[in-house]
């Protein structure tokens, strides 16, 4: 197990280095640099050139790259020339919102997937199973952003059950009960929209897994020994089928990353996805590249976690 884990972590290192190089190249390809926003046009070009020299913008690219990485390790992601504040601080304001959205979605994904998957797998080929399979089939083909729009239209505007934007009602004092409730209230509709689409692959996986395990010999043995049906399912089948699902949470996070950008845009939810879109429109590229780096590292770590947990749960993977 340790061998697999160590090897898996070693694979991760070149990936992160490559990712940082790619993002550095992207940052260099973008029009304008840190100075184009800082200095007003009246300053004479020689002074700008001097500043450039000072900041190391005229150095060869590999020295610039090393400096950039050094800054990264010190938590310095540069300045946002649009918001006029350090990128770290700017992302810090938004990361909490995206974190709560992601967590709420993840919880909902499992709350929906586990019962539906169990019903569908245990009573397969009944009307309940057909209903659930139909839902997963349509859910697979539905893009998150269309579903989010329709949900906002129906439940946000038409029925008015949920707030239609923001992450909290303005004017509330942080720390009070009302503040927390308002946060949850704003979070609910985006998280439900994301979860209802994000959960379908897990439902399907659980269903297939249960149907698969159901037909194996040890289940026959358990039944032959006279174990009651509830014990067969709870002790024997679910224990085998739920473990891989639980281990998937890392992949689940990776899958949600693209969805949060759409959902945050549609529900005007002030998270990192919305910040990314704003920074692209404002051509605030130091923010945009930092966010790509962050999401990329989140993807790498999410896959890593799931790979390692899966290798513990399912020893067959380790042999590969």
């Amino acid at each position, binding site marked *: 197990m340790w061998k697999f884990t160590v090897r898996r972590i070693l*694979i991760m290192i*070149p*990936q992160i280095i*490559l*990712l940082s190089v*790619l993002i550095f190249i*992207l940052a260099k*390809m*973008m*029009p304008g640099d840190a100075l184009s926003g800082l200095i007003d046009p009246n300053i004479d070009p020689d002074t700008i050139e001097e500043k450039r020299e000072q900041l190391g913008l005229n150095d060869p690219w590999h020295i610039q790259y090393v400096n950039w990485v050094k800054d990264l390790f010190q938590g310095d992601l540069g300045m946002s020339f649009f918001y006029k504040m350090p990128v770290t601080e700017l992302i810090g304001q938004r990361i909490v919102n995206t974190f709560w959205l992601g967590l709420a979605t993840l919880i909902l994904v499992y709350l929906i997937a586990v019962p539906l998957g169990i019903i569908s797998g245990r009573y397969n080929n009944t009307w309940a199973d057909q209903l659930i399979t139909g839902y997963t*089939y*349509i859910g*697979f*083909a*539905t*893009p*998150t*952003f*269309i579903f989010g*729009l*329709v949900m*906002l*239209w129906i439940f946000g*505007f*038409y029925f008015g059950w949920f707030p*239609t*934007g923001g992450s909290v009602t303005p004017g509330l004092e942080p720390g009070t009960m009302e503040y927390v409730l308002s946060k949850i209230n704003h979070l609910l509709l985006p998280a439900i929209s994301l979860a209802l689409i994000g959960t379908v692959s897990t439902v399907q996986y659980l269903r297939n897994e249960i149907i698969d395990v159901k037909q194996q010999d040890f289940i026959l043995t358990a039944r032959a020994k006279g174990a009651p049906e509830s014990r067969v399912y709870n002790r024997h089948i679910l224990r085998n089928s739920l473990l891989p699902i639980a281990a998937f949470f890392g992949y689940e996070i990776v899958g949600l*990353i*693209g969805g949060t*950008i*759409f959902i945050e*845009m*549609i529900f005007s939810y002030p998270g990192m996805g919305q910040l*990314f*879109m704003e920074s*692209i*429109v404002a*051509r605030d590229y130091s923010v*945009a*590249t930092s*966010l*790509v780096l962050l*999401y*990329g590292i989140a*993807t*790498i770590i999410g*896959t890593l976690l799931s790979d390692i947990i899966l290798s513990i749960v399912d020893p067959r993977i380790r042999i590969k």
Partner: protein
Amino acid sequence: MSKDVVIMSEQIEESHESPSGLKVLWREIIRDKLALSSLILLIVISIGVIIGSAILDYDEVTKVDLFNTHAPPSSENWLGTDYGGRDVFGQLIIGTRNSLAIGVLVTLMSGFIGILFGLIAGYFGGTIDNIFMRILDFFLILPFLMIVIIFVAIVPKYSIISFSLIMTAFLWMGTARLVRSKALQERELDYVNAAKTLGTSNLKIMLTHVLPNLSSIIIVNMTLSLAGNIGIESGLSFLGFGFPESTPSLGTLLSYATNPQTLEYRWWIWLPAAILILILMLSVRNVGEAFKRATDARQRRG
């Protein structure tokens, strides 16, 4: 398991001729009512939008008319007009054509790269396979949506060609992985060894021996990714990073719904486009699922 294989191979020998891959796919479609009606619907929609966009005056549709903005549906504008006074129904027709065209184009291009990449990695195996798979793993960890948006934002001369190239560059991995795993299995088989002993060049074996044997799974894979690509394109256009606004796509019409007023009171602008995207994606998927069953002899209906 091995007994089953023996029995199956005996049966195949008895029937002398096994049906060709394409015939099997076609037979499965005919047997599956849902897939057949989806296919017919797709053909009808495609022909409809091609003829429709040929009849429609393109300049007329994209002409801005500030005296007639946000008009509700009428006999003149069947689905009303958008914020620039442009006819929504006309945009819907042209948008469907554009979305379908870019979907097919991106699917073909990424399929081509994926097949090439997977075939080389799988056929040669060993070190080449190792290197290729590390490259593929790297592409898989990139946050697709963000990278594509950044590329679209920084490409100097942005056009439909560069848009489809950018999409292709980050969408070939699925096909490549599938083709590679199948090619790894194929290269162990006797016919490949026989061809090698006869002195056939590697290139010829790959293209004329291995590739035809993979054709049906490639068709399945590309059909299913066509459905996904239509969704991805409309998503990018929705965010404003797909087609430029002068060439409407279904996503462009949906992006008008980011205006809360339009979302709440003017459903005729965005809802038809949303339904059309769903219909297209579901139909393509239905056809793809039928193909998928056809490639697995145990699940076939036909």
